[in-house]
């Protein structure tokens, strides 16, 4: 995923790692975000809780792996409601002409140790950019639908 912001890199980076900034943008607009834990250092934990208008809470958590201001941030991401499939997110921040481009790559962390159903033939998570996987899924579904119709 790629996104451009009309702001300097340092500020965009700060928005990602400062607990005072995070609740102002992170998560769905209809919900409020609370920073429960945010220990911004390698190995440090983070946990944000989203509360929707009905009062339901959804918690997300992870661990920071790399923090290189203002250019790179790597952390794990897990939705507590669906534990076990953890993503490793790598965000890079590039600035050009006062605008910052952030690029996020998500790596599927296969929990083969947790999921006993997987055989030893399984390789560990693929480094697949989000868009490429989305394209593949779309293609597979379309072709399969075309075949059966």
């Amino acid at each position: 995923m790629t996104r451009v912001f009309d702001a300097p890199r340092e500020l965009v980076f700060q928005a990602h790692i400062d607990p005072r900034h995070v609740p102002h943008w992170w998560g769905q607009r209809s919900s409020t975000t609370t920073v429960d834990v945010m220990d911004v250092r390698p190995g440090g934990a983070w946990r944000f809780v989203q509360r929707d208008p009905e009062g339901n809470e959804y918690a997300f958590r992870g661990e920071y792996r790399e923090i290189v201001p203002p250019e790179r941030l790597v952390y794990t991401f897990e939705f507590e409601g669906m534990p076990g499939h953890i993503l490793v997110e790598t965000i890079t921040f590039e600035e050009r002409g006062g605008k910052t481009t952030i690029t996020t790559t998500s790596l599927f962390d296969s929990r083969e140790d947790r999921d006993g159903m997987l055989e030893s033939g399984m390789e560990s998570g693929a480094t697949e950019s989000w868009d490429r996987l989305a394209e593949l899924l779309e293609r597979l579904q379309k072709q399969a639908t075309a075949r059966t119709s």
Partner: protein
Amino acid sequence: MTTDHLSTTFAALADPTRRAILARLAKGEATVNELAEPFSLSLPAVSKHLKVLQRAGLVSQGRRAQWRPCRLETAPLHEVANWMEDYRQFWDESYHRLDEYLRDLLMQGQEQGKENPRD
């Protein structure tokens, strides 16, 4: 609690050979021999990949494995696609909010600059 199918599906997709097998099956059924052909893999190696795909519910196969064709089952893919769509929307919306928030911050900074001009 039911098995976490989503994780199993992601794990099954996390291999280029398996993705290539799925791409081939999307065009139509194939026997294990037909699937092995484009790769320089042994039949047992292809079978191992197929087992992973079968466990994820992505591929189904007749009983007499050697001769009956394999077919692509798309239900797990729909589940993954839905999950990915939710995830993408989550970030889409978050980054939209970030865009607005950054503009606010920068505007506040400019206004403060005007109120307290440096000499």
